[in-house]
C-alpha cells in the first residue's frame, strides 16, 4: 500500500512537471532550486520558503542603506504591482537583506512598507543569508568601512521569480521592462501548475 502510494506520488510528480509557458524573461525553469529558506520577516516572525507556497514570489537581495538602486527596484516592483491590480494579491516581493547588521526587523519593516503592501522584508543570521544567496548563486560583498562608520554592500541585481509551487521560473534584471515582467507574472498567476 505504501509502495503503491509512493509510486502514485512519483507518477503525479512526473506528469505534473512545470507547464511550458511563453515567458518573455530569461527562463530558468529546472535550473535553480526551489524556494527554500529559514529567515525572519519584517514583523519578527520566523518564516520559511514553504510559507509562500500558493503565491507567485519575486526575490531580490538588497539592503536599506542603498539609496539609489534598491529603491529604484522596489519602486519598479510597486509600479508592476499596480499594473497587476487585483491580481497583485497573489504575488509577493521578498526583499532579502544582505546587511543584517544594520537591517533590523524594525528598519526593514519601515522600509518595505514605504514601497508596496505586497513587499516582505526578510532578515536572518549572516549564515542563513549566506546560505540563501549561495543557493541562488547571488553574490554580495561588503565594501570598505567609511570614516563615518558607513559602508556599502555590492549585491546581486537579479530578481528571481518563482511559481506558486516555489519553483524557480524566470529571472528579471534591472533592464527588464515592466511590461515584460508583468506579462510573465500574469502567466504564473493564471497558471494552475
Amino acid at each position: 500500500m505504501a509502495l503503491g502510494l509512493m509510486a502514485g506520488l512519483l507518477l503525479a510528480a512526473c506528469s505534473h512537471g512545470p507547464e511550458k509557458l511563453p515567458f518573455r524573461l530569461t527562463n530558468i525553469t529546472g535550473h535553480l532550486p526551489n524556494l527554500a529558506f529559514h529567515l525572519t520577516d519584517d514583523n519578527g516572525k520566523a518564516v520559511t520558503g514553504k510559507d509562500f507556497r500558493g503565491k507567485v514570489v519575486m526575490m531580490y537581495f538588497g539592503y536599506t542603506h542603498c539609496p539609489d538602486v534598491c529603491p529604484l527596484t522596489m519602486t519598479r516592483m510597486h509600479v508592476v504591482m499596480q499594473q497587476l491590480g487585483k491580481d497583485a494579491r497573489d504575488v509577493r516581493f521578498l526583499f532579502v537583506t544582505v546587511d543584517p547588521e544594520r537591517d533590523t526587523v524594525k528598519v526593514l519593516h519601515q522600509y518595505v512598507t514605504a514601497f508596496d503592501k505586497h513587499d516582505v522584508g526578510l532578515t536572518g543570521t549572516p549564515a542563513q543569508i549566506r546560505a540563501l544567496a549561495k543557493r541562488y548563486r547571488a553574490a554580495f560583498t561588503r565594501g570598505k568601512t567609511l570614516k563615518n562608520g558607513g559602508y556599502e554592500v555590492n549585491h546581486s541585481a537579479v530578481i528571481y521569480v518563482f511559481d506558486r509551487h516555489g519553483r524557480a521560473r524566470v529571472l528579471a534584471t534591472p533592464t527588464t521592462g515592466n511590461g515584460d515582467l508583468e506579462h510573465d507574472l500574469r502567466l504564473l498567476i493564471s497558471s494552475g501548475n
Partner: protein
Amino acid sequence: MRPNILLALATAVALASALPVHAKDSAAVRVSGAWIRVLPGSLPNAGYAVLHNDSNQVVDLVSADSPAYGRVMLHKSVETGGVSRMLPVKQLAIPAHGKATLAPGGYHLMLMQRALPVKPGMRVKIRLHFADGSMLESEFLARPANATGISG
C-alpha cells in the same frame, strides 16, 4: 564723529575681507526636475536633477552640500556582471550647451546624516559646487520612497 565713521568703515572693510570669499553664483548652470527620494528613518536619501550648461565651456560638478544633510556625496550606480555597486564620483562634466543627468540607477547625490526633517512635499536646499569655484543653490522637491520621479 569723523574718526568714528572712519573706524566703522575700516572695520567693515576688514570684516568683508576676513569673511570667506563668497563663491560666485554659477551663471552657466541651470537645474531642472530636482527631487529627493525620501527613505524612512535615518536611512540615506538620494537626490536627482538635470543640470543644464548654457555656456560655451564645459562645467564640472565637483561637490554638493545641504543644510538638511551632514554629508552629501556624488555617486554613480553601476551594474557589472549582474552585481550592483556604487562608485564615488570625483567630478561630473556638464558639456557646453549640453546637460548632465542625475537619475535613478546612475549618477546621484547620496544624502547622508539628515540634519533637518525632510518630508515628502518639502523643498530642500542643495548647493552644487563647480570646478571653476562657482556655486548654484537649488531647491529639490522631497518625494515619497516609491516615487518614480519628480511627479508620479
